[in-house]
């Protein structure tokens, strides 16, 4: 492979791949990529990560905090989401059904003045199952959504999960506590 005497930056390759370049920039970058195997190989690595991420989601392997836009995109792509909405203090019975792709808990709270939060998921024996730190929130009326692949939730036994939302930072104020009263998956249900 011929060494490149004017390599494109990783950021330039990324914005090109994400179609954030102007027409002139796109033309210049493409002229370089077709003449330069080294930069083309670097672009392939970036592209493959992007395609790999999409494939993970396509396989229903998305897990963790998701934003409303992400949730909308999943639904637009035809994924079946079972969404449980909880306000502070709520206990909500929940389960997973055949055909579900993801199960999600939408946590509502007063996010006034809060830029990011932490979420702790606690088992009945008070052991911490998951902790999410520094999750960004975009507005006072916001919601926070915790999603799990339905395939994972189908393995859960019946149990009560306690979710605690606290503001990130020094004060760590509790914004809401929620309980998911989960019933184990029944293959005959639905």
């Amino acid at each position: 492979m011929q060494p490149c005497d004017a390599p494109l930056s990783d950021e330039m390759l990324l914005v090109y791949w994400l179609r954030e370049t102007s027409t002139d920039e796109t033309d210049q970058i493409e002229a370089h990529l077709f003449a330069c195997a080294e930069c083309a190989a670097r672009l392939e690595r970036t592209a493959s990560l992007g395609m790999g991420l999409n494939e993970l989601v396509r396989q229903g392997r998305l897990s963790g905090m998701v934003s409303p836009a992400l949730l909308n995109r999943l639904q637009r792509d035809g994924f079946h989401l079972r969404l449980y909405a909880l306000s502070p203090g709520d206990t909500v019975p929940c389960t997973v059904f055949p055909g579900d792709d993801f199960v999600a808990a939408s946590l509502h709270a007063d996010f006034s003045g809060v830029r990011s939060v932490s979420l702790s998921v606690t088992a009945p024996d008070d052991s911490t199952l998951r902790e999410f730190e520094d999750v960004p929130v975009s507005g006072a009326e916001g919601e926070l959504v915790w999603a799990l692949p339905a395939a994972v939730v189908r393995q859960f036994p019946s149990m009560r999960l306690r979710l605690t939302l606290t503001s990130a930072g020094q004060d760590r104020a509790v914004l809401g506590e929620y309980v998911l009263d989960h019933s184990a998956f029944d293959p005959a249900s639905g």
Partner: protein
Amino acid sequence: MPPVVDLSDGDLARAVAAREPGSGGLAEGELYRRFAPRVRLYGLRHLRDEDAAADLVQQVMLLTIEKLRDGSVRDADQIASFVLGTSRMMARDVRRQEWRRSKLRETYMPPPAPETRHGGELLDLDRLDACLARLAERDRLVVLLTFYAERTPREVQQELGVTEGNVRVIRHRALQRLRACVMSREEGP
């Protein structure tokens, strides 16, 4: 004559055009090896579809070799520009064909799983999954909003309350971390 792998792009194009005894097939193979991945990337970037990109590669490379053989490529040293121009022209046709095909596929077939490669090797999705889980929540969200939800930095800013400039920085760093993590095979996730 040096081995075809050592030829410049221009000399390689001339070798294909000349069809020198004993080198024609090799030169064509090398031309394909060199340019097919670039045409595929072009196709993926513009068409966002593995099948359409694969079609584009076949059509562009076939036409390029035909044009070299019949002497239609005037300046062999500009072969990269020729391949790019052909890719642009043919992508428009493939886009139209793909639109028709996707309609048929939506009706009759589930979409095939794309084959994702990383530096020429198949990308290990389990490893990518583990690496993604290691990112901070903010970074993971930015990456997913960017690649899966196809959100611009401005849209991510509105979604997460992070400045547009910060979105770009987070995105860039998160991708670097992901890339490093995926490539460090010897270290467990």
